[in-house]
């Protein structure tokens, strides 16, 4: 028995409300709870977790062989495993890797990439779409 229902029954017991009023309050409480459950289910159902990362590249820089089209589909599970692998790198080696990446112009700290943040990142990737549309090159990155 939840707290609100208990309060309603206490008010009925002390005579603050009639039985009819208590019945209407409990019905409204049940309706509110079921609407909340439906909303949660709808929200969960409307946003399935992405399973694949897709990268589409079309380059129309014409050479003797014609335009280039690249279509890559990578499972999210592979990305998750890759992040977990990065978190297993020993601290000493991680510093070397960070230094090497910094020299190449990528200021990324591998120690900040943690598996517990990964699931939240992947949930947000569901809405991610990157569209780059230039004169002769098109790049599209999205999750499905």
């Amino acid at each position, binding site marked *: 028995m939840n707290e609100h229902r208990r309060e309603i029954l206490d008010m009925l017991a002390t005579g603050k409300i009639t039985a009819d009023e208590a019945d209407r309050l409990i019905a409204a409480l049940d309706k509110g709870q079921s609407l909340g459950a439906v909303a949660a289910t709808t929200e969960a159902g409307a946003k399935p977790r992405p399973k694949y990362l897709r990268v589409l590249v079309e380059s129309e820089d014409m050479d003797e*062989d014609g335009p280039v*089209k690249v279509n890559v589909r990578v*499972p999210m599970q592979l990305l998750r495993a890759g992040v977990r692998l990065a978190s297993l790198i020993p601290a000493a080696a991680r510093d070397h890797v960070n230094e090497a990446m910094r020299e190449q112009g990528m200021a990324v700290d591998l120690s900040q990439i943690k598996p517990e943040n990964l699931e939240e990142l992947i949930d947000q990737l569901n809405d991610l779409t990157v569209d780059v549309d230039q004169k002769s090159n098109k790049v599209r990155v999205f999750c499905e």
Partner: protein
Amino acid sequence: MIPLFVVIRWHTGRRQLGLWLPLFLAWLLLLPLLLVLLPFFVIGCLLARMNPWRLIVTGWQLVTGLRGTNIDIQQGEKQFQVRMV
């Protein structure tokens, strides 16, 4: 689940090549080798101060994550496809 096949298709305009590589045979052949190397792997991990069990689990997740990977590259009449099934 680990990928069982790799399907490779290669069109060069004039020639067409299709390969079905049975990865499950490769896993079966690799398994005894991995078991033999396991003690050395564990010793190496302990020396490097890494958790061998976590590495094995992550490696397994990497291998199983490969299933469903598709790569298609097309240029004119040439086409190269790799699918992990």
